[in-house]
């Protein structure tokens, strides 16, 4: 049943309280309710977008390279699935066998643990039965494969599951119910409750046998760090909370031209396991596209477009590249979605002293490329350029920052926030154990891409659903209190 927290008079005790009604939270809550669990699902926003709710996300700050934390996430029913693009690509066996560069351990679970939930996750995302397909053949004779992926509708979880959430007798979806604190037992190793508030000052404590954080990678870390009672209890899992933040790297590797006779179509390649193993680089997608029209961004977009048009019309774009990047319609451009390696001291989420409307400390997200990330990006670019020519497809002109290591790599994010409550075999290396339970707290779990130990070379939504389904099975296997 869907209820507005502002209208609720009495709250019962639940078997499980899931905080966050995005793809991970909705999947988990519906799964447990179907198994008979009395489930509370808390959504901070309403059924539709509102400035009031979104303002909480907009209070987050960025340092290093901006990840736009105020606009890449959405704070209402369905969460960020309300604006995702739908691209799906599964993790691969090698992702679970090879530790990432940089010294941190990789996944503490086997590939099969995630793979067995792939069919169900594909069904949830309305993916075609034929699975993951490529739009072009492999790059012959080289280390780059054709990228195989599938496109979801894209599934909007708040819309698709509204009826199921409304009719479920075991589930209470509480809208406008903002988590403001996690209340840890003063002497035990358990969470006692979740303190919640609405926008009009109503405060309550929701209690359950088990608790799951499913608020996205930035908020999951934020609430663990914000909880004074957890810090006082010296919860071992907190050492890593907020650390090893990962994104996928979108880098303009350069431009390209096709050889005569090669169809001028878009192509997508994949830097896969063999390249990763041989060269010590990350994995990911390399997209080749032909620029259809002039595009500029930012406050001076109109001026930039005007100048580009002049340069392209006069056919002098190539000669004025030292002034700015003047790519003209018809130019081939190379973009990426590349894996970033996790690190302890680099990219991370930290708390600020300043507090939001609900008194929760605001966050700062620092995103940077490590030395290993930079090497990975440059090496993939170089190897790809050579392989493209060897295959007789054409030629690549690498961006100057690829060839000149002194120049910083301009990178933009894909809005894939991962790793801030990473999964590990022990609290020495992560926040949650292989069952997604926070180290040192018996009844607190985390769902979502924040538990990713590595980011892999694909989009995170489908894998995080696989892990949510796995978590539902794990919780059910523990049994619920009668």
């Amino acid at each position, binding site marked *: 049943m869907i209820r507005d927290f502002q209208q609720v008079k009495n709250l019962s005790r639940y078997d499980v309280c899931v905080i966050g009604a995005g793809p991970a939270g909705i999947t988990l809550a519906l799964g447990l309710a179907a198994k008979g669990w009395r489930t509370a699902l808390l959504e901070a926003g309403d059924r539709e977008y509102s400035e009031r709710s979104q303002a909480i996300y907009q209070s987050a700050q960025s340092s290093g390279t901006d990840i736009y934390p105020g606009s890449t996430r959405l704070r209402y029913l369905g969460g960020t699935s309300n604006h995702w693009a739908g691209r799906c690509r599964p993790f691969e066996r090698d992702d679970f066998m090879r530790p990432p560069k940089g010294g941190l351990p990789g996944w503490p679970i086997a590939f099969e643990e995630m793979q067995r939930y792939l069919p169900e996750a594909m069904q949830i995302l309305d993916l075609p039965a034929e699975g993951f397909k490529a739009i072009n053949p492999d790059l012959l004779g080289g280390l780059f494969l054709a990228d195989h992926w599938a496109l979801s509708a894209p599934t909007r979880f708040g819309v698709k599951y509204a009826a199921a959430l409304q009719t479920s007798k075991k589930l209470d979806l509480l809208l406008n119910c903002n988590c403001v604190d996690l209340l840890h037992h003063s002497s035990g190793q358990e969470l006692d409750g979740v303190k919640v508030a609405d926008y009009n000052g109503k405060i309550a404590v929701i209690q359950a046998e088990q608790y799951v954080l499913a608020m996205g990678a930035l908020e999951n870390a934020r609430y663990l760090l914000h909880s004074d009672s957890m810090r006082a209890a010296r919860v071992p899992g907190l050492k890593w909370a907020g650390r090893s933040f990962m994104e996928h790297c979108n880098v303009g590797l350069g431009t390209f031209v096709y050889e005569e006779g090669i169809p001028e179509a878009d192509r997508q390649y994949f830097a896969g396991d063999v390249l990763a193993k041989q060269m010590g680089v990350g994995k990911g997608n390399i997209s080749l596209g032909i620029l259809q029209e002039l595009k500029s961004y930012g406050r001076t977009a109109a001026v930039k477009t005007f100048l580009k048009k002049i340069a392209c019309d006069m056919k002098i774009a190539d000669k004025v590249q030292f002034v700015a990047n003047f790519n003209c319609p018809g130019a081939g451009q190379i973009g990426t979605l590349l894996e970033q390696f996790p690190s302890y001291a680099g990219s991370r989420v930290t708390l600020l002293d300043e507090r939001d409307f609900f008194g929760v400390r605001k966050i700062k997200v620092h995103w940077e490329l490590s030395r290993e990330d930079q090497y990975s990006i*440059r090496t993939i670019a170089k190897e790809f350029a050579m392989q493209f020519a060897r295959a007789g497809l054409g030629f690549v*002109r690498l961006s100057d920052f690829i060839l000149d290591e002194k120049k910083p790599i301009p990178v933009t994010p894909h809005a894939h926030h991962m790793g801030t409550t990473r999964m590990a075999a022990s609290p020495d290396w992560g926040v949650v154990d292989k069952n997604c339970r926070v180290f040192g707290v018996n009844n607190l779990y985390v769902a979502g891409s924040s538990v990713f130990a590595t980011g892999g070379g694909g989009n995170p939504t489908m894998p995080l659903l696989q892990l949510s389904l796995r978590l539902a099975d794990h919780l059910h296997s523990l049994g619920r209190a009668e």
Partner: protein
Amino acid sequence: MQDRYAGSPSIGRRRWLLLGGAALWSIALWRRKSVAPSTADGFLVVNGWVLPATYFATERA
């Protein structure tokens, strides 16, 4: 007469130090993973374009 080399490594030791330093330097250079394509890869980089080393020897040129 005061030995001007007193307290400093002998000629033989200095030679070994130099040789050792050169070896370490070579290893450091070898370990440094340069990313620019080179003729060793069979490629040239001209104004950012990554071209096969034989590119200008063909009829195309």
